[in-house]
């Protein structure tokens, strides 16, 4: 068995003739947390959609478990990869339990009849993301963090090898961000699920990622362990703003501090004098 879950080579995608991903080559190891970071509009969401099989590459190779993604039947692909979108729809007339149970769909017939076993898996998934007490509620009655956990439970219930998440911590407060990220770690450790996700929070990404990938304008800047990616030179050139990079006191992983403009002004004034 190969150790590689996702393999991309010269992966390219374009919307209406504009290239949003340009010749990306990388591979995701089985059972690791792989986090993609980069400035807004660098094609991160598009990359997640490609890996989840929602859109097809324009050019290049994308392999899931050693097979070209286009050659895998949609239903089989859904048994291997689950997707959690950035904006989860909540105007949705089903209960939390229904939503999580729908995760079984790729394993069921077209009519989607569930068995006792399916219900047990759904219960386990809800317990895992701590939403079991919400089982009978509607999504529009839940908070953003709870909704996100419901959709992660749905993804787990799909029983995939890989879970792809598009900014699961966006618009959540710090406590909920940590809760979600801890969940990702637990998923990796207990279920050996490969996690591929986008994060807008560089520091959070540094603390949880086995591999970080930094992209800008659809091009790969650097991929590797956080320490090799989050260096001052690289970050400054990518984000184009003054940053401070040191180590966090917890585990000596890189810590990035954005520098407010007023400090720059002071710096410039002292230079001018």
């Amino acid at each position: 068995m190969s150790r590689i879950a996702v393999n991309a080579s010269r992966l390219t995608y374009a919307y209406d003739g504009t290239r949003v991903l340009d010749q990306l080559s990388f591979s995701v190891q089985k059972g690791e947390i792989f986090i993609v970071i980069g400035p807004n509009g660098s094609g991160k969401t598009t990359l997640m959609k490609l890996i989840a099989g929602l859109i097809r590459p324009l050019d290049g190779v994308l392999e899931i478990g050693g097979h070209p993604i286009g050659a895998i039947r949609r239903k089989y692909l859904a048994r291997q990869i689950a997707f959690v979108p950035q904006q989860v729809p909540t105007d949705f007339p089903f209960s939390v339990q229904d939503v999580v149970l729908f995760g079984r769909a790729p394993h069921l017939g077209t009519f989607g009849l569930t068995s006792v076993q399916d219900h047990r898996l759904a219960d386990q998934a809800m317990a895992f993301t701590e939403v079991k007490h919400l089982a009978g509620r509607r999504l529009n009655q839940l908070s953003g963090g709870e909704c996100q956990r419901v959709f992660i439970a749905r993804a787990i219930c799909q029983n995939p090898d890989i879970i792809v998440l598009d900014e699961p911590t966006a618009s959540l407060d710090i406590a909920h961000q940590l809760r979600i990220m801890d969940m990702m770690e637990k998923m990796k450790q207990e279920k050996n699920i490969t996690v591929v996700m986008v994060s807008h929070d560089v520091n959070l990404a540094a603390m949880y990622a086995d591999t970080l990938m930094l992209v800008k304008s659809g091009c790969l800047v650097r991929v590797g362990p956080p320490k090799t990616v989050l260096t001052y030179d690289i970050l400054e050139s990518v984000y184009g703003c003054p940053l401070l990079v040191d180590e966090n006191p917890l585990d000596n992983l890189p810590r990035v501090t954005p520098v407010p403009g007023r400090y720059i002004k002071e710096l410039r004034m002292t230079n001018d004098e």
Partner: protein
Amino acid sequence: MASVLKKAVAVSSGMIVLLAGVMLLGISLGSSDDGILSLTEIFSRLTDPQSLYYTIVWEIRFPRVVIAALMGAALSLGGLVFQALLRNPLAEPYILGISGGAAIGAIIGILLSFARFPGVSLAAFAGGMATLFLVLVISSGRTMMKKESLLLSGVMVNAFCSAVIMFLISMTQDARIHNIMFWLMGDLSAGGKKEALIMAGMMVPCFMVIFWRANTMNLLLMGREMALSMGVNVRWVSVTLLVITSFMVSVTVCYCGLVAFVGLVIPHLLRLLFGADHRVLVPGCIFGGGAYLVLCDLLARTLPGQGEMPAGVITALVGAPLFIVLLKRTQP
């Protein structure tokens, strides 16, 4: 432990009883007798092929009731499928102009002297598909608001269709379309046994395909991307379901004209009663929608002292206010 299946069976059974009840009522009531007959009397008359009552019931009322049931089922399913696929609670074949397009096709077919089956039916289908395509193209792309633009496109296409229909009627002094105004408001009186049989033959397979796809519609409610990620071939499923639905609606238009808002009233009522699972709603719509239109038709032909009114009048009287209520409710 398929609780969904149990619920589907329970809801279907209830609806079947309801449907059977109103169908019996529809058969026993009419302009040619003076009220409800006792069961033994009905039985003795129904088994005597010589009696006038036998002819009225088996040749006129029974086919009419069957056609009304089929049509109610098709229109309710039409609303249900459109609401799920377009993710818009106000979508309905009539509101989106599909029925109007089918009517244009049917009128053109009649003017070209096609046979009702298959000529006019196919012309109506072509018309329905053309308007469906038109509405989807107009409302797609980078429009400001998806939900509103879909309905607006439908309203505009519908208005255009009405104009074309009136234009065609005014331009041709043709005896074949002399009672077209009546037909336009939904006329269920034209059909006989043969028509009922043809409609059943065309619609029942469509019902079955839609029922088989019920859970896929559940998944589609979560949005295109979620459905894709759960292994649904979204494009293929959407196209087949929209085509099948438009086909059913076109057939009803071809035989019975325009009946509005059934696809709005029944799915919303059933959702309110039994929840949102399409595996329950599809059979509910088939039998409950059938019962609803049989009842509307019964009212349409018994309420006026003399003659009858089109069934579409009743459905619009009920449906249009409901549309307004729903519109108010879906506004943020």
